[in-house]
Each structure stands twice: as C-alpha cells, then as structure tokens.
C-alpha cells in the first residue's frame, strides 16, 4: 500500500495514534500532512532509512493510509463489485491488491483488501473514499466503517521483519496470509504485503495500544524509522504510480487530462477483465479510443531528482517526469514519467542537464510491477492464441 501525496494546504493536520512515538525518534523533525494526518517525511536521512528497509528492517507509521472495515454477509460480493479485487474468492487471511475504477474505467485509487473472516474484510486505500463506499454498499447486506484513526498501523519493511513481529508474540507462518494474535488482551492483525522486491508486514491494532507496541518492537529489534521520502523511493522502484502525483484520480478530475486507465499506468494486471464483474469493467471492455499515454518508470543518469522535467524522444518533447527520487542503491535517479506511448520505443532524454550542458539520457526501468504487467500480458496473449 502506498501513501497519498502531501496535502500541502491542510493547515492543521491531526496526529496519528503513533505520532508521539514517531516524534520521539525523529532527528530531522520534518513533517507533513497526508490525508489530514501528520506524517513524518524524514527521520534521519533518506539513505539511512532506505538502507534499513532494503537490508534490515524499517518501521513506518502507516496511520495516514485510509482504512475501512466491511462487515456483513455480502462483504466479499460488495468488494468484488466496487473494486477490482476478487474479494469473494480470497482465502481466509489472504490479501489482494486491486484498483478502484470510475464508471468510465479510469483509475480512482489503489486498494488492498484482506479477508479476515467470511463476513469481515479490511480495506486500505491511498485516499479516503467513504462516500463511494456508501454508494457501493447500497443493495448489499454490509456495514462500512471508516476506521482510519481508530486503529494504529505499524509497517515493518525489510527482510528482518519476522524478528520484530515475534517481539509482540505473533506467529506469522505465511508470507501471504494474515495472522491474528493477542497482546495485553488486545487483538492484533499482522498482514504481510509486498512493495516491489521488499517484503513488508503491517500490524493493525486499537489505537490505545499504539505506544506500547511501538516500544516493544523498538526494544526488540531496533528498527530504523522510515519517512515518506524514503518510502516514496521504494514506491518508485517498485513501479507503483501514485494518484495525485503520477496521474489524476478520476474521482477528483475536472477533465480527461491526467486521468488514466489501468493499461496506461501499466496496471492492467490489477484490473483483469476475467476477474469477475467490477465497477468500470464494461468501460474497459469497450475503451473509448486508443491508449493515450504511458506512465512508466525511467532510470536517469543523474544525481538529483527533478520532478516536472520534460522528456524528449528524437529531440521532440514526449512527456514529463511526474515524480522522482535518487536511488542510493542504483546511484541514479528513478522517476515516473507520463509519456506518449510511441516514445517507449525510442531513445529518451530528459531536460535535466549534465555539467557539460547536454540533456541526460534516460532508459526504461524494469520494476516488479512492470514485470507483473508483462507476465499478465503474455498470459493474455497466449490465451487469445489458444482460442484461435
């Protein structure tokens, strides 16, 4: 799951349940507002935080991500309808990623759903969508509740997350299935997830226990706290485009400009047309016009990030950088770019300039998300070939 873009106009963001714990370990003391919740951008340095997430374990306050609980006998059906997640067919404890699409098949948001019991699901989304979920619940026997702020969520990112989780007495047996446990009489849900190549887990529990659990994890495995800037780098490397930054969410768009369909974002595998019947599916089946844009990740031979920079192919502008970050691991900038699809086959340059005044070269970067999309595409092509 990823964070929404900063809402810079929010003048009085609320503290998340883990705010005081996070504040106590912040050396950089750089904060921002995400969905109206105070969130740390930086604790120490991007390099240190990224290093911890890649090789050890980093701890993240995920309180700014919108959360909903869906209860009722139709919970799975309703979620399968409102999102592209096949919630009805999830195993107990299983999670799946998907998209929320508009009636026109344009992407509104990312969504991740976990099946905790036959009639109880948890949902996480980049932005809050209470109004939309209320609409989606009509005609179903379900109760939708916004639990953002009522629960504390600790994210643990990195290969050593198991050690940290064992400190609170939860035995997570599977890398894919959520586990539930109790500590001090309080129920905790531990839900594994993946962000690109990074294995992660999130611990969800009542906000009253926020500080106790943070402290236990801190004492047992000393995870480095990770802020939004380092997390954003992981997001770009993973190839997950962010609504509000890399594309405009169809929920908030005033025009078609900036609004993207799953295929344009390289996320067709998250809204496959054979995955039941979800909102926007029929529009995807009969798309209006050809693919308009391609939002993809580029690697740029630069040592500084430059969102907004123009991208050129054969000397002509073909798009722009939408978000970027310097990767200490790659020693290059990784960036999301919104491009004309034809440009993907050409040599790319970015309007950022080198010391000798030349435009910098950029190349397509193979992200885990792109690989998933390619695999999905190959399977689809094979299936089509077999039908013929």
């Amino acid at each position, binding site marked *: 799951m990823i964070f929404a873009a900063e809402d810079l106009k929010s003048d009085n963001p609320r503290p998340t349940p883990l705010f005081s714990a996070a504040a106590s370990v912040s050396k950089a003391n750089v904060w921002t507002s995400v969905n109206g919740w105070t969130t740390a951008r930086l604790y120490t340095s991007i390099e240190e935080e990224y290093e911890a997430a890649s090789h050890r374990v980093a701890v993240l306050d995920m309180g700014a991500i919108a959360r909903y609980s869906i209860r009722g006998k*139709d919970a*799975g*059906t*309703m979620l*399968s*309808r*409102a999102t592209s997640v096949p919630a*009805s*067919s999830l195993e107990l404890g299983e999670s799946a990623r998907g998209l929320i699409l*508009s*009636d026109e098949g344009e992407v509104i948001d990312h969504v991740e759903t976990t099946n905790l019991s036959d009639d109880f699901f948890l949902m996480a989304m980049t932005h809050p969508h209470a109004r*939309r979920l209320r*609409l*989606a619940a*009509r*005609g*179903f026997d379900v109760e939708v509740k916004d639990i953002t702020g009522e629960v504390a969520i600790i994210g643990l990112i990195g290969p050593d997350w198991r050690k940290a989780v064992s400190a609170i007495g939860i035995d997570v047996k599977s890398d894919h299935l959520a586990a539930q446990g109790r500590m001090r009489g309080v129920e905790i849900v531990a839900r594994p997830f993946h962000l690109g190549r990074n294995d992660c887990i999130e611990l969800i529990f009542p906000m009253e226990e926020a500080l106790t659990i943070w402290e236990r994890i801190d004492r047992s495995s000393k995870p480095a706290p990770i802020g939004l800037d380092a997390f954003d780098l992981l997001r770009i490397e993973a190839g997950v485009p962010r609504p509000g930054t890399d594309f405009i969410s169809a929920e908030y768009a005033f025009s078609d400009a900036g609004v993207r369909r799953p295929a344009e974002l390289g996320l067709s595998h998250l809204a496959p047309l054979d995955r*039941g*019947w979800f*909102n*926007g*599916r*029929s*529009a995807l*089946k009969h798309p*209006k016009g050809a693919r308009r844009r391609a939002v993809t990740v580029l690697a740029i031979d630069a040592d500084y990030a430059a969102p907004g920079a123009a991208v050129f192919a054969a000397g002509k502008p073909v798009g722009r950088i939408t978000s970027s970050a310097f990767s200490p691991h790659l020693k290059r900038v990784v960036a999301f770019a919104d491009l004309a699809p034809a440009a993907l086959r050409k040599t790319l340059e970015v309007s950022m300039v080198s010391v000798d005044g030349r435009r910098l070269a950029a190349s397509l970067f193979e992200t885990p998300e792109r690989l998933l999309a390619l695999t999905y595409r190959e399977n689809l092509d094979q299936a089509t070939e077999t039908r013929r």
Partner: protein
Amino acid sequence: MPESKNATSKTQSRAPSKIEAGIDAVVVGATVEGLAAASYLGKAGFKTVLLEAGASAGAAGREREFAPGYHCADGEHLLSALDPELVSDFDLYRFGLSFSNRCLDTVYYFDDGAAIRLDGEPQRWKQSLSRAGCDEIEPFGDFMEMVLETAALLRSHLKLTMGRDGRQSKFMVSSIFSNAPPERVALIERFLFGSTDDVLDGVFKDPRLQNLIMAESSLRMAAAPHDAFSFLALVHALSGEVAGLQGARAYVKGGIVGVVDALRRAAQAKKVDIRAAASVKSVIVEWDRIAGVELVDGTQIRTPIVVNALDARSAFVNQIGFEKINLEFQHVLDAPTPKTASARIHFALRGAPADQSTKANLSRRLVLAPSRTALRHAYHSARSGKVSAPLIIEAVFPSAFDEKAMAAKKQVLSIFAHPIPYDENPSENMRAEIMEAAIRSLELIMPGVTDRIEASELRLPADIAHESGVDPVTLAARPLILEQWARAQLLIESSGIEGFYFCGPEAQIGVGVSGAAGRVAAKAAMDDSKSRARFL
C-alpha cells in the same frame, strides 16, 4: 462467496417455473415509448416480446367513468410533440392515428377578465393579434419569430443520442452559436440561459402578452418565470412537432389512448408479441450483461436485449438493483425531491358553461395566464407547501371532440392547474385547498362554472402513482430543460449494463410524450447488436 452469486439475487430464491428462450429482445412497459421501441425492434426482424403489467397496452390512460355517465382518461390530453420519424416510419395513420383537431387555437384569459385568442400555429400568432386589436403586434411578432427560429436551431441539439455514437455526445452550446446568424447570438444566449422575466424585460409593454408568455413557459415546469434558464422551456415546447406543425397542440381522437392504440397495432403488424398482465419482477443481469427478465409468476425469459420504458427507479433500482449498476450512475438515480407539481382535475358539467365566450371556445385550448406577481406568489406558495390562487390553468373539453357526449349534453372539462405543492401523501385539507384554488382560477376563465359542476375528480401525482405503481417523482413538475436533457442523456447511456436500454419518462425532454426516446433506445439496441454480430 462463489462467483455464481453475481447473478441477480432476486432470481435465486427459487427455480424458475418456466424458462423461455429464443427471444431477441424484451421491452418492459407498453407506454408510448415502449410500444415505439418494440415496433422498431420488430420491424428490424428481432423476435420481440413486449411485457405490460396492466390488463392491456396503455391501460393506465384508458377511458374510465369518473362520475355516473361521465368519462375521462388520464395522461396527456393534448399532444405538443409526436416524433415525426416514428409517425412516418410506421405510417401510424394507417394504424388508426387520427386527430380530432391537429392544431388547437388557444384562448388566453387574464386576471382582469380580458382574453386573447391565438392561432394554433405559433407562426400565425402575429395575425391573430391583429385580429384581437392588440397594440404591440410588431414587437410581439418579431419576438415570436426569433423564438421560433431559436427553437428550430435547438431542435437538433436537444435530441437524445445513444449507442456507440451517442456515447460521445455533448450539449455543445458553442455549436448552436456557430450555426446562428451573428446578430442573433446575444439574443439566443438570453433565450438559453435567461429567466423568462429577463427575456421579456423591455420587449413589449402589454402585461397581457408578457403574462401569456410566462404562463406558456411555466406550465407544468418546476422553474418559475424568475428562475434562470426558465425561458428555455418555451423555446423547447415550440421546437416540438405534431401532425406536421411546429409548436402546435393537437387533440388525438380517443386522447392519448388513440396514440397507444395506433402504436399497438403497428407493433402487432411487426409481429411483436404483446403480453398483458405480465409483470416483471426483475431483470436478470449476469456479470455486466443482460441475460433476461423474470416475471412475477416465476417465468424467465432469456434475452440479450431489454428495453425498459418504466420510470428510472422501477427500471434500475427495483428491477436491477443498486448492486448491479455503476457506482457514479447511482447519483443520477438520486434525483432531489421535487417541490412543485401540477394537478389534473376532471369536471363533470351539466351542459356547457353558460357564458358565451366559453360556449364559443369549447373546442379550443383555454389557458388562464395569471399576472407576474400572482404567478410569482403561486410558485413561492407551492414551494413552501401552500396553495394560492390564481394558478395557471390549461383547460380542454374532451367531450367537445366526442359526438356522443355532445348529444347527451354532458360536458367533461379536463384541466391542469399549476403550480401546486408536490406531496407524496397529500392530506384531505391539501386536496380541498388545491380544488378550491383551481375552481377559483377556473372561474376567471368561465364565470359561473361552479354552478354547473356535478362531480369532479382531483388527480394528484400521488394518486396516479398509487394506482399505476410509477415513481410519483416522474409525475411532478418537470425540471429545467437543460437539467432534463443532461439527466436523460446519462440515464440512457451510462448504466454500464450491456444490452440494457432505457426509454422511461425521465428519458423524455419536456412535457408530454413523443415516442422519440423509444425510437432512440431501439435503434441503439439494433446498432449494438449489429456491431456485436460483426465482432463475433
């Protein structure tokens, strides 16, 4: 939960008692629109079944005895638009469509007792005024000429479009302007966006002329003359065509049932299987595609095309269910509760009213046009749940077109009184107040009529809705024309269910029926079917 539960839950309670297959299209609701759609589908060679919940096609508008010896029919008493394409495609005259009067003159009455008679053809209003000895013949004539020109320009822009081409449709104001003569652009802009009050400001001084225009633009509309965009209602009304005449009002032989009967015969001639007393319980949707309909008796009719002519709430919410329709589309179904409505009243009269004026105008359309202040007051009252008089009255004598009634000297007077408060459960008090206000207004048209009333029947939206099962909101005063157009366009093209086509009352723009929505829905179904066949 297994995927099979994606099939409509309403169909799962028990096994169907009978499954009928091999049907190309099902049309739900034998209204004018439903019959039009079925006729087109039948003509195109689709094996079509038309399902009607009532005892016969158009049963809701059939003639009935409302007082001993006096008959009336619900539904429209006059036609201001009947889709010319529909009439010519089926040559409805061959199937019995006939007009008692294809162009009714209108007599406008005013608070001060004066009256002006205008010709049934708006193009001849100027000549009518000269006969009436009005002072402002030229300005009125020029004004009406411009209104009619704008109406002709608008006609192509306010058409409903559907199907693969229609999904790109937009109401492009700029294209109207680009087709208009440059010197008229500012005026057209006023006609499109202005209130009736603003448009009339300074055009002519005679308050009677102003009042009659205000009455025509407000009759059965939710927008008062001082509301923005309200003038467009008149422009739209004058853009309609009936019996080959633009802006005219016609009386069909047999009332609206005359149109229904002609269409029914046309549909039968095209081998449409019309089934009465066949109430649809639910529309079967499998994934995002139509699979058929289930009737109340448990019979399932499997078909890839369903055209629904019922109101939007019945069609989408009751028969399909929220869980099957696109999320944003649900907003379209959540129309705000209306505040105003019109009352339909039938009066049984002991002979024609005594005054000479009424006697001379029995086979004309009679309209009471209240003053600007009175009309504003009536709207304010209606919106706050009260009734005030005078109201706008549109009156006709159906019996004047019926030779039997004339012979028996029994007169039936049918009126629309507008505006009144919209109420889904009107109290007896409210009913009495409405009746009193209507009779007080009627007295201004035909003094002494009260003494001739033998019986009366007040038909409010709630009454008709209660009997016919339609959503009462569709019987309330019509919203602004642009609002109607936008909503209709969304309703017919955005449900997200493949094979489902809507042509209910919300798919029609303006007051009355025309059959155009049924034609548009059927043509979209035929186009989609053709392109699917090409793809396969």
